[in-house]
């Protein structure tokens, strides 16, 4: 599951992620981080069971971090898309694939939000949600 974590003035200096990793013994993959002394935002990917995830979300909450679950990173505008495939092999994590009829399919679970597909698309059909 991918989460968006919002930090505020009080908690942005604390090693919250490290503490949660140690406590829950789960890896947390940081995909994006914009942090300064006042506030910040992180996108993380946590490969954990639903039950574990609930506890992790609670721990972030207790530390004063606002958590939002992210379900979809990019959107493909199907009227602009020609199913050409320019985005497919440019995706470094195989989150975009072509079906036998060449239609392009996007797998949100694999997406790391790198945005390469957005610029790779010749028709500007892909955008962040």
């Amino acid at each position, binding site marked *: 599951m991918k989460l968006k974590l919002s930090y505020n003035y009080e908690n942005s200096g604390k090693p919250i992620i490290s503490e949660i990793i140690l406590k829950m013994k789960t890896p947390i993959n940081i995909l994006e981080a914009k942090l300064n002394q006042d506030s910040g935002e992180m996108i993380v990917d946590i490969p954990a069971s639903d039950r574990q995830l609930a506890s992790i979300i609670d721990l972030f909450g207790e530390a004063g971090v606002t958590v939002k679950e992210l379900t979809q990173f990019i959107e493909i505008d199907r009227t602009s898309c020609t199913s050409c495939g*320019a985005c497919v092999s440019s995706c470094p994590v195989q989150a975009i694939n072509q079906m036998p009829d*060449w239609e392009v399919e996007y797998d949100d679970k694999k997406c790391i939000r790198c945005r390469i597909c957005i*610029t790779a698309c010749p028709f500007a059909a892909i955008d962040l949600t």
Partner: protein
Amino acid sequence: MSDERGAEKLRSYEEINGKITSGDATILTADEFVDYVQRKGLKAAAKEVDVVTTGTFGAMCSSGAFLNLGHSEPPIKMIKCWLNDVPAYKGLAAVDAYLGATAFSETRGIEYGGGHVLEDLVSRKDVELRREGYGTDCYPRKSIETTVNIDELNQAILLNPRNAYEHYNAATNSTESIIHTYMGTLLPRYGNVTYSGAGQLSPLYKDLDYETLGIGTRIFLGGGVGYVVGEGTQHSPQNQFGTLMVRGDLRKMTPRFLRGATFHKYGPTLYVGLGVPIPIINEKVAASAALTDENIYTDILDYGVPSRNRPIIKRVSYADLKEGEIELDGKSTRASPLSSFKYAKEIAETLKAWIVRGDFLLNRPAELLPTYRELRLLEVKKPEPRVKDIMTKNVVTAKPSDNIKDVAKMLVAHAIDHLPIVEEGKLKGIVTSWDLARALAEDKVRLNEIMTTKVVTALETESVDIVARRLDRHNISGAPVVDSENRILGIVTIRDLASLLRR
């Protein structure tokens, strides 16, 4: 009947059109024909099938349209003309212009180009038209700003000098960084393969010997009807790089099959939908139309090398490419197309439907396309500066064990910013004046503690343009010049490049 090219041994154009009109013709798409030949054999298939339809939908940069924009009151002789801020070519009569697919907007940049304007025109959107003239006795007006749509123009004729490449090479990237090319985004270290062309649906591959393709061949173009004008530019049929020059009425086309596009950091282009009907006039044509993706080969080239002689990394078939995985450099690499197989198939099917309905007849070309054309390359006759012409030869160097303070003094004494680190004549690293300033501030002592070991270098024989681009890409201000064994020969800096501009 003779054996000469274009011999109508199995059926004539008149016979085919007669059958189309009476509803008795057998028309298959190239995909269907391939299957049919595998089931029934070539001889039987050639006997039964009258026409095979093909299709391709890909980026075709050599595309554009002649537009006659109409005379205003008072009239103007345009010497400059823009549509949605994209400049059109105006070295023609007063109100004729040619809008090329790769020209781009003077306000929006490469995100919007001639290809996008053509799509907007075909979509029947209003387009901003700006014209400038210099005023003559017969054309007194000097400027116009208005809007036009395609139905207000006298003519809007798509005339594409080079379309429908028979096949095209595939692309990969051996370098350490991501590159953005007309073959799309190429990931570092052979991270992916992109390719173009329609494989077994490709119009020109289905008539390999140009038995039927020629001046006047009626085709599917941009969703409407078009014609082959002749061979395309860079037509090189003996290497299976044949091309077509085509024309069609832009007003009868549809935005589904004529789409503006931009390759990131490369520029705009036009995706053109093109389909050719191949009449099965003899068995040679049938054999060509029966070629499968397994029989159609292309080379994967290294686009990391910015040269017209890009190294061939591997030769593969379109069947291999369509698998989506190619073995490169000892590992499996993803491959994906840039041209749409989905649309190519739709074009072949649409063309088939037109013929089946009797709406589209075939015609015998006035002249067949040539089967051989020498491909000439441009030799630059004016001498151009090479790295060895501008580099500093008496380069000051240091050893990895040298003391930072001594080296700092040396930079000051020679008034230089770059210091290659050399051991036994070979380049080991580099430090800049900025590295030294920081090292002194952090109390470092030896050069090998701070030197950059992954050095961006140049070769003596390289063109200055290539090295300037390399410096810019790595955001650095100089590169040591080395030979093939990494022995230092000199250094080239932005100061040397600047001196070139003063010459």
